[in-house]
């Protein structure tokens, strides 16, 4: 299976960096996500995760998003949904979400994702 590696792109709309690695099972989305056409960017990622999790035993999903717009927010929930279904089938899932320690809004938002996805998410504040 091919890996996905996308570098962060910063114009007015900002694409996050992506590193989905099928060999290690480590999948990272990092940076900022303010996209105009969110589905064009995220649907291949969702498809990759779905395909990968058909044959994988474990996944480590790491989010380090400083900002994301509301249309991105739905795709994050979709991806977490795919991970949850994998976990229910017996897969091993680890989700880590890094956020700036002063960003109270993001802290609340991650808690809402934990509630919404029913997944355990390790919240890691950084400076």
């Amino acid at each position, binding site marked *: 299976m091919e890996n996905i590696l996308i570098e962060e792109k910063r*114009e*007015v*709309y900002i694409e996050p960096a992506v590193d989905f690695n099928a060999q290690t099972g480590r999948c990272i989305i990092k940076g900022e996500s*303010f996209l*105009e*056409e*969110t*589905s064009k960017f995220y649907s291949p990622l969702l498809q990759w995760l779905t395909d990968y999790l058909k044959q994988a035993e474990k996944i480590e999903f790491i989010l380090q998003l400083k*900002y994301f*717009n*509301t*249309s991105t*927010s*739905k795709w994050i*929930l979709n991806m977490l949904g795919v991970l949850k279904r994998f976990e229910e089938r017996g897969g091993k899932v680890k989700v880590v979400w890094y956020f700036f320690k*002063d*960003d109270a*809004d993001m802290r*609340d938002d991650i808690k*809402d994702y934990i*509630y*919404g996805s029913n997944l355990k998410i390790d919240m890691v504040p950084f400076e």
Partner: protein
Amino acid sequence: MESVTTNKRRATDNVCISYTGLFDSEILTILAQGIEGTLTSNDKVTKKVFKIFLELAQNISQYSLEREPNSSGESMGVGTMLIKEYDDYFQFSTGNKTTMESIIPVIEKCDNINSMTRDKLREYRRLQRNMPASNKGGGNIGLIQVALTADNPIEYGVVKCEDNNYFYIVSVKINK
């Protein structure tokens, strides 16, 4: 006559950024730089204003009734954006033309959002995230996010235009 001039000056004194025209990616870049570079040295407030800017500017690009082609021929919305600074807060406002049919649900949504506590709003956002995305991908969550980010009610106004359409203004305060 002097008092008129003074009043005039007062009305514009607080303006940090104002723009009216096409909301395409080129102008959004310039406005974004203006917000990130010049508004305030308070990083937390800048982030909030920036986040609100991206949500509301995207709404104008996508939903404004008044449209013009950008340099690549794509139809983009025309609208107005205004940022004013006061002692304790920034006031962020956008405006665009719309029809009565499209504005009624938006106004209802604003009233609904304003009636909710922060916890209720978060719950509402969670529910909306689980709903299928609208065809333009905005996910219907933009205004909820704006209210949560600003941590203040959404103010709005609707003015009838000469062509029988309406000009819809949405405004939020962001505390310093």
